[in-house]
């Protein structure tokens, strides 16, 4: 973990209220999939967390969905702006020993999974992706996943693109899921709840979010309840958890 002065290289609208930011950081070491950075904003005291979505040397990509004043501020920045970042934070996710694996993305949840897809690709682990979103416009990064995955399946709630229905409705109907060794999922809480109910025999790794204080393990602000009744810290114990381990 270090503090970085980053430069915003590009800020582009990706979908409704969804922005793609490329920033430049020098002297950054290895980042694991699932790790995140904490961005200082002008509107809030605490930093805001964003997962690394892609990387090309010292160019890092983040995908930001506007949900409040911090994200609104980030969305409004133009190229050349300076950013104050802390990271990489979190344990990140364990990499699978063997494939194929499947990525399950709900909406902007696609963001951290893209970087995972790239890493899996580098390690020659076969990877499929099921990208779901409310509407066609909200389906993001499909092309990028396309270049990294064996197969990319699209789904929208309203059927405007790909299968029609929720991700967890489509998933059981897919033929190729039998040989999948593990699943990596990121999306809204409701998606995790439904995934849990599907009761896979294979591990499902959930990329969680939570309102964070520090992001560095100091404040116990980012609690998610474990099956044992104790809370885990999303920031340093996660943000990726075995879906079995946590209570939703």
């Amino acid at each position, binding site marked *: 973990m270090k503090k970085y002065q980053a430069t915003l290289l590009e800020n582009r609208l990706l979908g409704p209220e969804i922005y793609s930011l490329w920033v430049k950081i020098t002297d950054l070491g290895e980042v694991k999939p699932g790790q995140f950075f904490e961005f200082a904003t002008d509107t809030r*005291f*605490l930093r805001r967390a964003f997962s690394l979505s892609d990387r090309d040397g010292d160019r890092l990509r983040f995908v930001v969905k506007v949900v409040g004043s911090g994200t609104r501020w980030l969305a409004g920045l133009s190229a050349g702006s300076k950013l104050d970042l802390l990271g990489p934070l979190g344990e990140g996710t364990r990499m699978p020993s063997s494939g194929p694996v499947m990525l399950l993305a709900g909406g902007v949840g696609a963001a951290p999974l893209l970087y995972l897809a790239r890493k899996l690709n580098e390690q020659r682990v076969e990877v499929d992706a099921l990208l779901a979103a409310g509407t066609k416009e909200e389906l993001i990064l499909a092309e990028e996943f396309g270049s990294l995955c064996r197969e990319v399946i699209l789904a929208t709630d309203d059927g405007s693109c790909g299968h029609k229905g929720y991700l967890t409705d489509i998933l059981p109907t897919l033929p190729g899921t039998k040989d999948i060794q593990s699943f990596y999922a990121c999306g809204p809480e409701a998606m995790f709840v439904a995934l849990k109910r599907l009761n896979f025999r294979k591990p499902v790794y959930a990329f969680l979010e939570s309102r964070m*204080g520090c992001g*560095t393990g100091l404040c*116990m*602000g980012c*609690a998610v309840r474990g099956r044992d009744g104790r*809370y885990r810290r999303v920031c340093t114990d996660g943000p990726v958890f075995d879906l079995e381990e946590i209570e939703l």
Partner: protein
Amino acid sequence: MNLEVFLGKSRFRNPLVLASGTFGYGLTYTDVIDRVGAFVTKGITVQERVGNPPPRIWDTKETVVNSVGLENVGLKRFKEEILPEIDISTPLYVNLAGVTIDDFRILIEGLRDEEKVEGFELNLSCPNVKEGGAALGQSADRVRKVASLARSLTTKSIWVKLTSNFCDVRETAAAAADAGADAVVIVNTLNALIIDLANRKPFLGGGSGGLSGPAIKPHVLYMVHQVSKQVDIPVIASGGAGCGTDVVEYLLAGASLVQIGSINLVDPQASLRILKGLEGWLKREGIVCVSELIGRLEGI
């Protein structure tokens, strides 16, 4: 330049103290801990506590409201699992969070023989269920009782961390001083309520929370000044400090040490920046001993 501060027999390498609940148990970022004057652990309760359901944090530009609910490993695990792992060169203060007076007896008896522990910060802000939800710290009488008990149980340093909610913190501070406390900490977070309008219920999982951050600094500065005029023991400030000059302001207002809290959440190395700011200011002003500043506010 001499940044040392003495509180009675205790020496602190500089006036910065990492505030309870904002720097964990002291197992991480020890390079930062080793540069400040003292470190205070997260509040420890007799029994392990899982803490409040999320969300636990809310913020604006200048405030934080937290409702962690004293999640901690409890006395036993703290002693057996945490304390042996703590490896810092900075005085270690354990924040004790008791609900009843007897809790404090158990906590102090459990830790008073630990060499690693330099002293205790008595957190008197937990609502006392028996006495109807009021915290021990809200009555001068109860503060006196807890502080006297603590004094009778240990010769280690005792800091009494007070609340300003629904009470006169000048009186409770005087009671702590009377009872032999080594210092009072002014002040724990201000009670706060955040409303989730869509659901017409409290936003934070714990119901209500505690307000901290830069916005409360002027208010806490006032209280520190008043209390330091009222009591003869040292005052430790806690509220919104975020830069070197904030530390100077608190010292001028009468504080001997200044706790660094919420800002640690923004950057675990904030204290190092604050220390640098403090040193820079002292240098520019040609001040050799930081302790010269304590209580030197003019014209009020």
